[in-house]
């Protein structure tokens, strides 16, 4: 176990380091300079130079990178150009809404995806399978934010079952928080679930075609036990490996969907900063998102090793 954790850490830490360097270098790719982008096309060279000095952009790249990393290690992501607020504060205000939505979506995706995938994969070629597989094709094709729009229109605006403005912090009103999370989680979960369902189905079909299934069946073990204890566990191995990809996709989807549900998440922050070319904020959001994805993959890889003995380092 400890070995497995260390082994994965040896992969994760360099990965985060490279991502950080890339994120830092982002400002050097801006045509002209970030200061010019902030001030607009009519800015005089003097004004740009002044702002650059003010923002510390005129220091040599290595020195800037050193300072940036030193601050980063202390949890300081810099100061927003526009609002002058610490980026760390801006992000930590928005993180709960995004995380709630993504985790809720992920739960729905896993329940739905594994359920549908197992149901379809255990009876390939049947009507049930074709219906469910057809459903997953639809689930992948549907634009998530449009689905969210339809769901809020019908269930929030029209039927009034759910609040239109969904976000309530869990510390203020826990049940209200859960209530508001239902529609966003379903929206994110349907897409993620469709992806997971397709993978589960394929893995299930593969796993049920393995000779060990016949070995157990021939030894008199009941079909139900074989399917659900042996087939599913073997099928979950590849599914778990891809859950990290789905998590990353759902974060991206949440950035768009939060607008539909009026969630004060990272997406809105990223959107205004992207339009305003507020680079410290953009860098901060990218870095935090990447760290989230890397962290979830780390956890998944460990649990992958726990399920699949062959993936454990010798």
């Amino acid at each position, binding site marked *: 176990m400890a070995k497995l954790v260390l082994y994965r850490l040896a992969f994760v830490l360099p990965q985060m380091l490279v991502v950080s360097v890339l994120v830092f270098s982002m400002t050097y790719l801006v045509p002209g300079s970030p200061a010019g982008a902030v001030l607009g096309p009519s800015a005089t060279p003097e004004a740009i130079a002044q702002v650059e000095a003010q923002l510390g952009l005129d220091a040599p790249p290595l020195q800037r990178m050193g300072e940036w990393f030193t601050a980063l290690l202390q949890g300081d992501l810099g100061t927003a150009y526009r609002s002058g607020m610490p980026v760390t504060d801006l992000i930590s205000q928005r993180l709960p809404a995004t995380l709630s939505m993504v985790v809720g979506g992920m739960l729905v995706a896993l329940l739905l995806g594994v359920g549908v995938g197992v149901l379809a994969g255990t009876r390939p070629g049947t009507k049930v399978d074709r219906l469910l597989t057809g459903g997953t*094709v639809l689930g992948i094709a549907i*634009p998530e934010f449009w689905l969210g*729009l339809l769901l*809020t229109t019908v269930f929030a605006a029209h039927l009034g079952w759910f609040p239109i403005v969904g976000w309530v912090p869990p510390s203020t009103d826990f049940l209200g928080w859960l209530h508001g999370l239902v529609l966003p989680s379903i929206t994110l979960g349907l897409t993620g679930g469709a992806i997971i369902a397709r993978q589960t189905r394929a893995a299930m079909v593969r796993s049920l075609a393995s000779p060990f299934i016949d*070995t157990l069946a*021939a*030894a008199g073990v009941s079909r139900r036990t074989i399917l659900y204890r042996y087939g599913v566990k073997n099928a979950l191995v590849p599914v778990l490996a891809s859950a990290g990809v789905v998590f990353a996709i759902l974060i991206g989807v949440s950035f768009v969907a939060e607008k539909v549900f009026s969630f004060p998440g990272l997406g809105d922050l990223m959107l205004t900063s992207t339009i305003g070319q507020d680079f410290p904020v953009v860098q901060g959001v990218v870095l935090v998102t990447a760290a989230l994805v890397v962290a979830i993959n780390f956890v998944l890889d460990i649990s992958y090793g726990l399920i699949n003995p062959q993936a454990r380092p010798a």
Partner: protein
Amino acid sequence: MTTSTIGPNAADTSSTRQAAGLRQLWRRLRSQPVTLVSTLVLLGIVAVAVLAPLLAPYAPEATDFDHPLSGPTADHPLGSDELGRDVLSQLIYAARTALLVAGGSVLVAMLIGVPLGLVLGYKGGWYDRIGSRGMDIADALPGLMIGFVVIAILGRGMLVLILAIGIIFSMNFARMVRAVTLTERKKLYVDSAHVTGLPTRDILFRQILPNMVGPLAVQGAVFLGNAIKVEAALSFLGLGLPESQPSWGGMLRVAAEHQADRPWMALPPGLAILITVLVLNLLGDGLNDALSGRRPVRKRARSAAPVPPPAPAAVADDARAAVLTVDDLVVVADRPDGSTARLLDRVSLQVRRGEVLGLLGESGSGKSMLAKSILGMLPPNVYAEEGSIRLDGQQLRGLPEREFAKLRGRKLGVVFQNPQGNLSPVHTIGQQLCEALRANNELSRKQARARAAELLELVGVDDASRRLGQYPHQFSGGMAQRVAIAIALAGEPEVLILDEATSALDVTTQSQVLDLVLDLRERFDMAIINITHDLGVAAETCDTVAVLYHGELLEVSEVNALFDDPSHPYTEALLAAHPTAETELDRLPTIADKLTVDGDWIRK
């Protein structure tokens, strides 16, 4: 075709091969109605986009301030937005935007991803290691985030949008091309191109690349769909094209503002996105199935002949000693074209308690199908059409699965060939053995565990109680096969079938496992059917040997009689083809196919 560089001959064969491949692909695609309909719908959308000025009733930006936010009317069949712009016209013009941006970005993704994947896959080594790590790192970011970053750096606009979406998908293309290149570069044509001194660039782009047109087309279709979704999402957020340019995402942005008072406004653009992405995905799936030759599995109603009534008393008397009797068994497989193929043709044999019956034959002779018929584990589309299989007098042919399930384990057991594959890789040996034990006996967990250790010891696995906690990959092939035997013995079956159970093992291990089986036969008083293609194994272990060829049983003899005086010319040829220590030949003897058209053997 560019293969002419390695000689006219090679070019010729490869182009005819490609033409044949294309014809086959077309045949398969034609038989997929969903793919055909999707193609038609997609062509329709493309036509609408191209002919937009002719089809749209208004210019997309034309305003009608007299009728803002109207519902469907004669003037505006799909209504109008807050500036009175015609929704239908916008929808039509937006198809142009969607296809242009998606097409452009898939092109960008291919331009970046394909060369990258080719080089990484072909060069291998450090290039590949660093490149693959790079792709893993790119995985840490949601695709949409990369889009945000590109737009943040370069500002908004059509070209930036195309570039942003293209970069998102480039890594997917790189990954796929790398994987295909890895397998392609090991193939002969790459070697021969290399030997003829073709520059690497030409090998990559002129030799390898044409071989992945299929997979690239599949990915291209799927990512066109994805790109349309991303474009819509970015336009919905206002990061895409300027408002003046009609886009489905932009229309949804307007619709979202009127969600409360004009809920229907979200329908036309949303459905347009959904349908376009859907047909692209279906097209990709269909193309993928056609390329891989996969066809939908359809179960056909079984049309087997009625099961014969119980055998007359006289026959039953004779069969009393035999625990398993197979009579005139015919097993057929459905062909895709509706006809059937005979896998077993009137096969009859019997096996007694304590007897080892060898079932000898080359691959494809129907040995395994016979085993699967007895076990009731025939694959879908294969079924026993005629004849009978009786176990202790009970008719097995046509027995419902529910009844069959009761026999497996307690009366019938089997060990298959693949030693590692026979065991679930993610469960311990103990879990699997206990599962089989508890399925056949009333045992508590603890009792099952103790019995499992005994059984494991019995099949010759040392240190049994510790090894129960281990996983199959920690076992050697021979040891894993002993575990599979233990699982088959859990219900103390009357008939044990070994389906090439020792074929994958080395010779020493093989004879150890066979000795074990002979030992167990006495202990459990079982009948054993040993299916093998190995004459040595048959000679060593069997009392009686049956020879199968192309689904027909050629002869059944006592083992010594068979080896000393084979009655059938095929058996003779089979024995002659078996290399022994005395064989001093430059080449191993082979069996020529001596069957005539109607299936009779020609006597020499």
